[in-house]
């Protein structure tokens, strides 16, 4: 097991408005090793984006951390003061988003914006900074680096902007990159290029990635390990091949079975009945119990904790604890 870079432990996040308080994350724990790509997967409202934002302390004003801790190297991120946190953002931990257009200020050139990020965190001379910028833009496969540096965001295509955003996130050589649905808004062929690029740079430079997505196919392509979130809780945490070969949580199985694939052509897809619960914090037992065909009384009464069912394979389900039972 590689050295651990980031540990999220029992993280709980609530939304507090004038008349309501609802739980969005209800005890999420995960671990990211050095040089590891961890996929965080789930459907709308499961809390995956919120988890990413929590790590960087970029939560919206109405959200607050109710309990838990996030440790990055030897830092306790939730306890850090804002000034030191800003030192972490963009240099030790970076984030890229779904729509590259929103990462860039339309009024400034790409070059000047990246230079700004460099200047915030490193003390480089102008010449060294420009050299670093050129280096990182080349590394993301952008042609005509000089032209791109002088361009404004609207002058670049979606694919090029996405590469520029990745470059901006990597310019200060972060140890961890959080990628929130970076290819969802892109065409299939461009997306595959970007995913390939990310994999390549990640292998070359050795940084870790937390890859947040709802697309199971993408997560399979890009990650070493997958964490499946449901209703603000971790359902399953396994290596990518293990998860897809032998998913052990009923939700993971349902999700994977619902994706159309060659074998299902012309036949009905297995679908999960019901819908996601609104406020997971108020559920006593397993959040998935209402929709699970295997649910027993214990599932509704007692919340399942993550159990190890194999090497690097954890499942939060009462029925999946013993791999020898041949349960599948």
């Amino acid at each position, binding site marked *: 097991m590689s050295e651990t870079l980031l540990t999220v432990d029992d993280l709980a996040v609530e939304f507090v408005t004038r008349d309501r308080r609802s739980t969005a994350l209800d005890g999420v724990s995960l671990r990211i090793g050095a040089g590891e790509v961890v996929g965080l997967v789930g459907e709308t409202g499961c809390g995956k984006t919120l988890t990413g934002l929590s790590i960087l302390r970029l939560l919206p004003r109405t959200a607050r951390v109710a309990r838990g801790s996030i440790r990055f190297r030897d830092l306790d991120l939730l306890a850090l003061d804002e000034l030191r946190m800003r030192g972490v953002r963009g240099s030790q931990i970076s984030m890229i988003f779904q729509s590259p257009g929103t990462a860039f200020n339309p009024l400034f050139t790409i070059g000047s914006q990246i230079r700004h990020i460099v200047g915030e965190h490193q003390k480089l001379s102008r010449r060294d900074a420009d050299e670093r910028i050129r280096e990182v833009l080349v590394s993301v496969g952008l042609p005509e680096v000089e032209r791109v540096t002088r361009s404004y965001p609207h002058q670049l295509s979606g694919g090029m902007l996405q590469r520029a955003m990745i470059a901006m996130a990597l310019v200060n050589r972060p140890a961890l990159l959080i990628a929130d649905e970076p290819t969802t808004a892109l065409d299939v062929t461009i997306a595959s290029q970007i995913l390939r690029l990310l994999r390549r740079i990640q292998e070359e430079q050795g940084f870790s990635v937390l890859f947040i997505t709802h697309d199971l196919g993408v997560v399979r392509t890009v990650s070493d390990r997958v964490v499946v979130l449901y209703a603000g809780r971790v359902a399953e945490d396994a290596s990518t091949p293990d998860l897809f070969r032998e998913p052990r949580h009923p939700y993971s199985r349902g999700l994977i079975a*619902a994706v159309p694939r060659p074998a299902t*052509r012309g036949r009905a897809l297995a679908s999960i009945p019901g819908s996601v619960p609104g406020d997971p914090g108020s559920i006593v037992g397993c959040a998935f119990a209402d929709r699970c065909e295997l649910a027993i009384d214990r599932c509704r009464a007692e919340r399942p904790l993550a159990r190890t069912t194999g090497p690097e394979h954890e499942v939060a389900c009462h029925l999946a604890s013993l791999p020898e039972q041949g349960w599948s």
Partner: protein
Amino acid sequence: MSVGTAPPLDAPATALPLVRVRGLVREFSVPGESGRVVRAVARVDLDILEGEVYALVGESGSGKTTLARCILRLLEPTAGTIEVAGADIGRIRGDDLRRLRRQMQVVFQDPAGSLDPRMSVLDLVAEPIRAHLRTASAQIEAEVVALLDQVGLRRVHLERRPHELSGGQCQRVAIARALALKPRLVVLDEPTSALDVSVQAQILNLLMELRRSHGLTYLLISHDLSVVRHLSDRIGVMYLGRLVEQGPAAEIFSSARHPYTRALMAAAPSTEDMPVRPVLIKGDPPSPANPPSGCHFHPRCWLRERLGCPELCETIEPPFVQAHARHGSACHFADRMTADQPGEVST
């Protein structure tokens, strides 16, 4: 350029073209530059047979959405003909156009956005009935409830507004509304892209069931190849306004006859165990306002590169050629691609 009208093997008995498109062109003028036009659809021929699911596949700028809107007459074609059930619909207006609408309906990509936020489910589904049929108002509610029942919704949903429904429920309302006039053709414009995986599965199942029970014909527009593979009988692949390949779904997926199609297949991520596939596509897609000469795909084409960049690709637009009655493509060197290896070239 005939596309071959022999019916697919598993199509229902009456396999006549419900929709016939010949030489369709749709241009848009470039704002700010007088005289310059963008050819969103450039001389497309295709047939949609009654009872089948025909999928139009392509990325942004391919023209698939524009083509669908021309068929639906939400846009008027610049040139070419469109025949629906034998009638030329390219230039009809007014009441004729309104009557035509009863035969073709559409389900849009944005489930909540395609419903008027101020209307109740009852009003939304009843709207087409009220606009076209002389149904007595006492009976309208009964018809709406029957439609809701077909899509898996209940009476209790009648008074709800779109913002009180989930994405999947909104899309069911949209489907119910599309069925209200008993159309023959339903255009599905990315019907599940905005939905979660589990909801998508429910909606896809619903669409399949409705097609069987109502004898519908679907024109499916999608960029998601797994959905296309799951639902369609025949597929048309578009690139920068041109139809570059058309054929039965199984053949397109196993042995495509255009390098772009193969690149598309190779790029689509899958949840299944796949051998590592080469990424076959290079560079960014060109702008539809400024398409490359000859074959639009040539600057990004892996096949051309493997063959040593023959000049033909740059100079002559490849004609659409039928390999056999049902499968054709527009590539000078289609035969040089081997049947199974996606990136391999035969010598």
